[in-house]
């Protein structure tokens, strides 16, 4: 069979079938198209300003390595004028982090970028391995996600940097959209797709320049540029809703390769349609997992289904309670359903406070990481307590403790 010519330059031999649209491309065209698309995303969303100091959240995995490589290339090619550096978090997962951190260290040399590594043990007094020992293998992604989110912000603050970029790709964003839809989580649906997130709760801007890049293309890019990255998956399993969404998206991609991007587009549109009054609202305590947790790199939909079952039970109870309610009708004027147009309600602004424990910026009295830590520390033998815990937040911590006891029981 004669070699196929590249769809783009029509000259070189095509060696890649582009996962996004099945175009056959040569190596040079693929790399150039991939970079140009990231550039267009950056320009189209006014992501950076000249002279901005930007920390790249680097895990040593494919996404963040490609992000670092592409940003370095684009920064030089288009004169963004960015001051780039690498910021790594050591979650303390033996066999997963040790090697990948070595990769990050090599990347720092390869890309001539300064590197800063922050450990969970240093920040929270707990490594992820210790957390898992405590809470079991279920639901630990919640801890990892919340801790990591803060860790990156804290690391950036320490470096005096206001902008952190992460390697979230289109697959991660699509997964988050589907997951939030399955979970009925409108507030997160309204913010999960945005390229820049979390300006409310923190003064550090976060963005995902690879938001429109397919995971498979990131792998191809890394391969064809022979980037040095560490291939591994997080050894702990994802939360049930994310697992279900992930499986679904893999199936969709088989049917129509563009569907990942299509979900991102739908997610962006729906985010703009979420009623203003629910956008800022928080969610129940079970869904402490933030969108960033998708970036942990785990690929399989291995799941226990515990979270879905819990929500199912909750919904069934709501339904039952609803059937016991008595509907009281207003005598007049209530027959016409109000037009569900934009309501004139004032937006309830989130007040930014500082966590009473750690002084980290939080919309709550106690930040999420401290709440989680509270629960963890309660179950740790007294002599081993490393982070001081006050006794005032009795209620939330005991709830958390019960939840974890349940998790432990069901894990055994």
């Amino acid at each position, binding site marked *: 069979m004669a070699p196929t010519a590249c769809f783009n330059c029509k000259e070189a031999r095509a060696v890649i079938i582009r996962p996004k649209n099945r175009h056959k491309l040569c190596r040079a065209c693929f790399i150039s198209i991939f970079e140009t698309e990231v550039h267009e995303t950056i320009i189209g*969303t006014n992501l950076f300003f000249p002279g901005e100091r930007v920390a790249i959240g680097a895990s040593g995995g494919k996404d963040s390595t490609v992000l670092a490589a592409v940003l370095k290339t684009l920064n030089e090619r288009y004169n963004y004028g960015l001051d780039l550096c690498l910021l790594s978090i050591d979650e303390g997962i033996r066999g997963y982090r040790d090697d990948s951190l070595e990769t990050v260290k090599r990347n720092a040399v390869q890309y001539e970028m300064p590197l800063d590594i922050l450990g969970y043990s240093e920040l929270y007094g707990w490594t992820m391995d210790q957390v898992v020992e405590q809470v079991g293998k279920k639901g630990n992604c919640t801890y990892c996600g919340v801790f990591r989110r803060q860790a990156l912000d804290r690391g950036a603050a320490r470096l005096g940097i206001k902008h952190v970029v992460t390697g979230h790709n289109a697959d991660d964003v699509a997964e988050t959209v589907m997951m939030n839809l399955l979970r009925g989580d409108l507030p997160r649906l309204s913010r999960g797709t945005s390229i820049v997130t979390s300006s409310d709760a923190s003064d550090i801007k976060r963005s995902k320049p690879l938001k429109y890049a397919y995971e498979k293309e990131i792998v191809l890019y890394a391969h064809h540029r022979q980037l040095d990255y560490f291939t591994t998956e997080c050894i702990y399993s994802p939360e049930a809703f994310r697992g279900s969404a992930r499986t679904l998206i893999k199936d969709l991609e088989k049917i129509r390769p563009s*569907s990942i991007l299509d979900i991102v587009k739908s997610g962006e549109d729906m985010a*703009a349609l*979420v009623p203003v009054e629910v956008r800022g609202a928080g969610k129940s305590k079970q869904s402490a997992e933030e969108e960033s947790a998708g970036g942990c790199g785990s690929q399989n939909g291995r799941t226990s289904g515990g979270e879905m079952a819990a929500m199912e039970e909750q919904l069934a109870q709501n339904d039952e309670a609803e059937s016991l309610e008595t509907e009281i009708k207003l005598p007049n004027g209530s027959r016409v359903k109000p037009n*569900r147009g934009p309501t004139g309600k004032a937006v309830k602004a989130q007040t930014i406070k500082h966590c009473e424990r750690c002084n980290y910026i939080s919309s709550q009295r106690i930040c999420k990481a401290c709440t989680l830590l509270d629960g963890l520390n309660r179950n740790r033998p007294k002599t081993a307590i490393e982070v001081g815990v006050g006794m005032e937040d009795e209620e939330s911590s005991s709830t958390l403790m019960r939840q974890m006891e349940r998790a432990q029981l069901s894990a055994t």
Partner: protein
Amino acid sequence: MPAKEPKKSCMECNDAEFELTVRKRQLCSLCFRRFIAHKVQSRLSVYRAFGLDGPKHQLLLPVSLGVSSSVLMHILNSDRQNRLSNGRPLGYDFKILVIEPSTIAATGVPFDQNYEALQKNLPMHDITRIPFHSIFDYVPEVNDIMQEYAGSKFIDNSTQSNEERLAAFRASISTPTSRTDVDNILLTRLVVEFAKKSGCESVMWGDSDSRLAAKALAGVAKGRGASLTWQVSDGMSPWGVRFEYPLRDLFKAELLQYESVCAELSDIVIPDQPPSENVLTKNLSIDELMLRYVQNQGAKYPGVMANVARTANKLNPSTSDNAPTCSLCASLLGNVEGNSGVTVANQAEDNHSSQFCYGCMRSRPEKLC
């Protein structure tokens, strides 16, 4: 030994023997029907008139002769009969439209007997039967739109019959996902035009909760997230006809239960084809994949699946009234106001994007990606 007396009476009326279990409650068939009917009627309270001289709303009920729409029709009809015999005001009246199933599905299911049974059952009703290809008569501009949409893959031959022309257009679309997608758009447009021509202000769609969940998920997966506000939510459609989904609180399984206790429905309903076991995932349409997903997951987590449609129903309709819309499906071109994403810019690979929306571009026969 005292005889063990199992509690068998209906939990609602405490009188009749229970026959069905619905949402953990054991009910007799009468109370069950009342329960289901109540769920539907509470959705239609907008159309209830409070006095005898109140305005009478004209609704259109498209019936596919499947379980869900037939049950909806039965409930509305029973309600109508009750009210008429009690001399109570109805508030609304409805017309029935049957788009001949044999002109939609390739596997032409004979439906004449079912249609006759329907007519016999509702003798007082305004029932119309039209073929799918009558879209050329109802939506005259569809011809040009099809030509523009399909590009060189479809050459319209005006000497052919409408049936052949529609078949040629449908054949130009290559993947099952795109074909189902475009079919649904055309069917919706046909129903809407019929509703307008017959003076109906609203269309009552017979989608069950499970189906709405699948529709929501499929819509999102096809880049049609912005249209969920009328494809899944109750609300105004872009064509100025309201869309209502009165079965949104009922699961498919419950509608099947209803059918089983209504003898008169058995002659009307064309049973669903069981999903084929040996189809590769990649050969399914996205709509089919989502239906299966909702069915499988719904067996274990019915509430979670039901919640998907409820979540979609909470979205606000887009406010940009004067924004340009897609000439095929009437969805917004470009982004919803407030969405600053650049998915559309990334995809603008040809000049057709000016006329068709993102979702329709994806289903085009000559799509470039």
